[in-house]
Structures are given as C-alpha cells and as structure tokens.
C-alpha cells in the first residue's frame, strides 16, 4: 500500500529504547544537580522520537502527516510557553 513496514528495524529500535530506559533509570542515582530534569526529559524525547519516527512510520509518511504532528507539538508549546511566561514574570514590572 503506502509503505512497507520493516520488522528488523523495529527490533533494533526496541533495543535502543530499552537501553535508553536503563540509562534514564540509572541516572536517577547520580546527582546531576540542575541538569537532572533536562537529561531525563531529553532521554524521554529521544525515546519518543524513535517511537514516532519508526513505530508510527512518521519517517515514511506524507508531508501532511508531518504538518499535523508538528502542529500538535507547536500548539502544546503555545500552551506551555505563554502560561509559564505569566508565572515566570510575576515579579517583573511591579508597581
């Protein structure tokens, strides 16, 4: 039909996902200070990217699907960024 799926690749991706999970859990026992969250979320984002690109076939999908996926992320970004802007700037410009 539109694209052929590749089972071998799936297994490789799965192994990568397991490795990243082990890394993220293992790193909990290491004190990274302020970087702790950023590292955790970056690893999560990497895992998510693997799933979205390969398991969900985004890599081989038409551009309209890319637009939808990126739009969803963009809108989530609007919600988070503008809301957090309020809280982050409460102490600015007070009268």
């Amino acid at each position: 039909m539109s694209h052929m799926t590749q089972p071998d690749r799936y297994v490789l991706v799965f192994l990568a996902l397991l490795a990243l999970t082990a890394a993220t859990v293992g790193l909990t026992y290491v004190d990274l200070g302020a970087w702790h969250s950023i590292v955790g979320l970056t690893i999560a984002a990497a895992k998510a990217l693997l799933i979205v690109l390969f398991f969900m076939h985004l890599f081989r999908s038409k551009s309209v699907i890319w637009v939808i996926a990126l739009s969803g992320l963009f809108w989530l970004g609007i919600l988070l960024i503008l809301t957090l802007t309020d809280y982050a700037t409460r102490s600015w410009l007070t009268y």
Partner: protein
Amino acid sequence: MSANHSSLAHHFADHEQQHEVAVLGMWVFLATELMVFGALFAGYAVYRAQYPAEFAAGSRALNIWFGGINTVVLLSSSLTMALGVHGAQVGRRNVAVMCLALTALLGTAFLVIKGFEYHGDYVEHLVPGLSFSDQDWLGREPHVHPEKVKLFLFFYYTMTGLHGVHLLIGIVFMTVLTILAWRGRFTPQYYGPIEVGGLYWHFVDVVWLFLLPLLYLIGPR
C-alpha cells in the same frame, strides 16, 4: 469497515483513499489527545516551578521499580504492535493475530502492575484523602509543606490515571482487532483499523515515556 460485503465504504473511490483517510484521521485525533494531556502538563509545570522541593520529595517516595518495569512492559507492547501491523500488511494472519493479542496482554500486564503499585502507594500513606499523613512529611530536610506534596501526588494520580484510562481503551481496541483479525477480516488491501490502532497505542506509550521522568525521576535518589 462496512458490514458484510465490501471492505470499501461507498463514499471512497478506492482502498488507498480509505486507508489514507483513516491514518490521517488518527493522526489528527492524536494531536487533540496531545492537548488533553498538555493541559495536565501545563498545570504540572506551573506547580513544579513553584514548589520544586515538594515535587522532588514526592517523586522520591514513588516506587521506581514499578515505574521502570512498567516502562519496559509498555515498550515491549509497542514492539509487538508494530510487528502486528507488519503482519497484517503482508497478509500473515497468524502473525497479526498473535502480535495483537500479545499487545493487549502486555497492556493488561501494565495495568495489573499499576494496580499493585497503587496499592503499595496506599499502604505507604501516599494517597491524599485516604491514607496520607501530614506527619510523615514534617521535620524533613529540606523543609517541605505537606499540602504541596499532596498537590504533587494529585498530579501523579491524575496523569497516570488518565493515561491508564487511555490504555484501557487501547486494550479494548486491541482485543476487538484481535478477534476481527482471527476471523480473517483484514487483508493486505484492508488493514487500516490495525494501523490506526497501532498509532493510538504508540501514542499512549509515548505519553508514558514522559510521565516517567516527570513523576518518578524528578530528583536524584
């Protein structure tokens, strides 16, 4: 997915259009789902920025082994799901049926483990309103407000709860697909429901992948 005869609905020109429409529709739906969870993420972000100590303390109280094992379970289910879609696409009915069934099983395993985890949380006084005790949190270093720890736990239960509801829906979906596949409903020309079921399943997995660091891994243990 019309009744008995044709697998092509009357308002589509051909199977390819029908398939593309289904995939497009599910991706659009997933964008909306992202926004549902997004509202929770926004609330979480606001309060975590304001009460970092309490969120970290609450996070440490959660059982990371449950979290980690469940992550592996869900990732495995994503693998079986992807293999199931492949099986359907190449017309290997037995592979598809087995993989779909395994996916549903693994999803159920996740929920069972989660059930044990919730029970453990209850036993350890981590359920506000039911078994939470302010005393457990006073007198700690760094100083934490029990009220704010409750807020963290609220997000923990709401986010994992909403995720669990979505997973349950996914399990039902997978079960139905398994039965239909076993009955020979799908062909290499018509397997759209399995592919969109897969997209949904992977999305639920991705949500969990973010819940893991946000809830269980806030600070060092």
